[in-house]
């Protein structure tokens, strides 16, 4: 059933978020540290395990797949709810403090990858 897939996704999501929140608390910072990452690892482990055992029916998988396909529409909605106007009204300092690091970070990608290939 589709809801089993959604339920599995929800379970992994909540456990991962809990680990992320706990890790943040443990480190003494008010932020979730890697919650999404832990959730993803859990989901990958569970789905691969179930697939191996042959107990992941197509319908269950579709419950997860639906949300994975809703990802881009959700991102479009997220973009439309960013505080873009306030950012622009903070002026040129905020603009430059945002753009200069972005440019430098893009330049770092090929450098890091070269390091990786060595």
């Amino acid at each position, binding site marked *: 059933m589709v809801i089993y897939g959604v339920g599995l996704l929800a379970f992994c999501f909540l456990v991962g978020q809990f680990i992320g929140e706990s890790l943040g608390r443990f480190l003494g910072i008010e932020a979730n540290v890697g919650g999404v990452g832990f959730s993803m690892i859990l989901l990958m482990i569970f789905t691969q395990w179930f697939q191996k055992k042959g107990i992941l029916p197509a319908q269950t998988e579709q419950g997860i797949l639906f949300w994975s396909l809703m990802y881009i529409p*959700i991102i479009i909605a997220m973009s439309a709810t960013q505080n873009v106007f306030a950012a622009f009204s903070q002026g040129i300092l905020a603009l430059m403090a945002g753009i200069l690091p972005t440019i430098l970070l893009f330049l770092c990608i090929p450098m890091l990858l070269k390091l990786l290939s060595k």
Partner: protein
Amino acid sequence: MTILNKLFTVNALIVAFLVVAIITWLSTVISQKLLKGKIPGAAIAILCGLILAFFGGKWSGGTKGISDVAGLSGFALLGSSMLRDFAVVATAMGSSLKEMKKTGWIGAISLVLGVFVSFFPAVAIAYAFGYRDAVSLTTIGAGACTFIVGPVTGAAIGANSSVIAISIAAGVFKSVFVTIFTAPLAKWVGLNNPQAAMAYGGLMGTTSGVTAGLAATDPKLVPYGAMTSTFATGVGCLLCPSICFFMVKFIFGQ
């Protein structure tokens, strides 16, 4: 008219589904017919979202973009971090855990490097604009990591609210630029495989920018970028009020 008002308010999420579907459809038509597929439809749709967010904020005076406009409040739920993270986690199904383990250490390096490469250039710019005190410089630098690191750091070291506002704005700008520039720059920086996506996610840090940028580039890379970027805000909140703040104090005095 009152019927329509009620319909749009009670069914806000459904309205958001419809509006996003229309934006996606228009963007796909523009992408295929006008631009001959040179810019993917998803990239145009996300850009449309950002433009709507600008005017939404301008017209309503609110802080949540288009969702503050009457009748479009459903965008706040559809675009919430809850649903975004839920969908991001879902994209992990079918991606390779082995691939992630293989580049785990590159992810760790990219996270730390990402904080420093964001922080210090932004501090330099704040300095050039006349800021001299370590607290303000650090807060603006932290904002360049992500728009959450800025206010968290500012609150921790006691920055004033106008500086915190600037740091949040810097973070929002970064997220917007990462969103817009990822697709056009992807080829040039070699962003076409899981390893590169993990390095990219850790370096950029901003989850909204990374997830939106990869959506416009290659949705298959999303889980890899998200895997590292989800740690970035935490790493930033850890380093900015501590090591980075000390370094700024050491360089600029007080």
